[in-house]
């Protein structure tokens, strides 16, 4: 086939239908020749559409309705969003600020710690690295469910609680504190526990990233006048492992924004005392599975989706390779 011929202006109108048909035919041919490819893609794409893409659109649709799970959803326009942003005191006073506080500390904080620990481990001799990696990775491997008995015992509110006992022994507190039921402490403990189990996939990706940096670059850097390890990190390590850092950032954003189970596991209640550990995901659960206001709950989850999308764009902006890199 030859490429499209330049046609005089007056001829275009007559020719267009056949051009369109030609294009369609070519497209169909490409489609047909790729049929095996689509066959390979089909199983994944089916479940992908069914459990990720369609649910997102359904959530968006339901967020404009009033829906109790039984009767057909009734369209209510923007009312859910208006109520959410103007009347929902629990959302505005607790869920939103708590999620921001939690996500800001556990997200970037955990990310920085993962980078630091991965870098430190990388400084060790090769044969030791695996053991240290395992030590940092093990808590995240056990995960929230398996370890919740540990946190409950450690932060137990009486004198037998391990933290209370330790602090009493040291003379730092006079009376045992009810760590998990007291609104003043719950949030901090949630953050501490989440940080503890935050060294997961992203941490491994960063470790691999360090190993992947071309060793010759370091030598070249030394010749060019890089004097200490800090400069090495800034001028060589970080630029060459940007892809892994981006992947890791994406993973940490997702895990922090979707967190919500942790407060339930610590306190044993779906709604924490005085909403002290109330995150957006808990708010969704509250409206969806306790009050059965599924339309409203969907609006809350759409807000969460939008927030995570925006944070993600920001992360890409931050780590995406710049022009000329």
């Amino acid at each position, binding site marked *: 086939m030859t490429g499209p011929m330049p046609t005089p202006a007056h001829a275009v109108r007559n020719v267009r239908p056949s051009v369109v048909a030609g294009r369609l035919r070519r497209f169909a041919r490409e489609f047909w020749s790729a049929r095996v490819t689509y066959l390979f893609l089909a199983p994944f794409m089916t479940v992908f559409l069914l459990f990720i893409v369609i649910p997102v659109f359904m959530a968006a649709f339901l967020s404009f309705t009033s829906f109790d799970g039984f009767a057909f959803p009734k369209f209510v326009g923007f009312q859910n969003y208006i109520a959410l942003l103007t009347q929902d005191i629990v959302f505005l006073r607790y869920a939103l600020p708590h999620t921001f506080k939690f996500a800001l500390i556990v997200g970037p904080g955990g990310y920085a710690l993962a980078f630091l620990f991965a870098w430190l481990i990388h400084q060790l001799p090769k044969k030791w690295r695996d053991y240290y990696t395992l030590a940092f990775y093990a808590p995240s*491997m056990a*995960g929230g469910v398996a370890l919740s008995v540990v946190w409950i015992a450690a932060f137990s509110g009486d004198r037998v609680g391990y933290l209370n006992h330790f602090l009493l022994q040291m003379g730092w507190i006079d009376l045992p504190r009810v760590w998990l039921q007291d609104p003043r402490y719950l949030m901090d403990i949630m953050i501490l526990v989440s940080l503890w189990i935050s060294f997961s996939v992203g941490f491994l990706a960063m470790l691999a990233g360090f190993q992947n940096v071309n060793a010759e670059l370091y030598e070249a850097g030394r010749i060019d006048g890089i004097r200490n390890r800090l400069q090495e990190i800034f001028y060589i390590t970080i630029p060459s492992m940007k*892809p892994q850092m981006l992947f890791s950032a994406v*993973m940490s954003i997702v895990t922090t924004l979707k967190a919500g189970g942790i407060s339930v596991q610590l306190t044993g209640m779906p709604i924490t005392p005085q909403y002290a550990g109330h995150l957006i995901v808990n708010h969704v659960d509250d409206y969806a599975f306790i009050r059965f206001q599924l339309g409203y709950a969907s609006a809350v989850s759409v807000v969460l989706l939008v927030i995570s999308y925006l944070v993600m764009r920001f992360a890409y902006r931050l780590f995406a390779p710049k022009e000329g890199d």
Partner: protein
Amino acid sequence: MALFKRIRKIKAFDVFLVAGLTALALFMLLPIVFIINHAFKPQNELFLFPPTFFVKHPTLRSFELLFLHAGSDVVPFTRYLFNSVFVAGITLALVILFSAMAAYVLAKKSFPFKSLAMSLIMISLMFAPETVQIPRYLIISGLHANNTYFGHVLPYLASPVAVFLLIGFIAQIPNELIEAIKLDGASEGRIFTRLILPLSAPALATISIFTFQGVWTDVETSSLFMQDETMRTLAFYVNSLVSGLQNSVAGQNMAAAAGLLVFLPNLIMFLLFQRMVMATMVHSGVK
């Protein structure tokens, strides 16, 4: 003399590094050490004052209680265990197959709508299923997958992270290899099973670990899609054991034992495949 020289070569930084990092690593391991000790404690050691960290008279009593008695419960412990093993096994096999098939064509072929599919997968990396529980519940009910093993398995098959990791890994398999085997008259199916699958073994091991961890510790499918107690999984059972513990000490050892049973398979999987994981994560970058 040689020894003396070698000691002088070790700088202060290295000493600090090893000492500090070892201390940190031990600190990080505290919960793991604790759960192991706690699981083997006899009932009376739970009530000791001052509380003890290490077990003094280890016993298998908690495990025995879990397996044999689990007493008043309607559903025996072994049923939860079976559900978990069965679900994890099926999910693992299918995730590997589905993700590898998709990743192969996404990494090596060009076809209409490829860029659309790629960008959908990239965006969905940020996707957290927790945000769309309601529609997922409706879809599972629509498929009549409540209280069936499909309800456990299907949602997990959509794993963009697995596909993403595999694309990164398969992309660096040389095209010449594929061309060579094609010249020998191999079909796409043959290329996939004889070339792509074996060569991407490290990446497959890696996604198995992550998928297994996800499925094995997941409580969402059990609590949302399963109303029938006999269809729920081990992680769910552990979660319910723990949720009654906020104000009581008795039973903590049993919960710790169950928690340990959730943790151990993860640990074994990771120890087996640790090297392969690192080999895969090198190609994990978002470019």
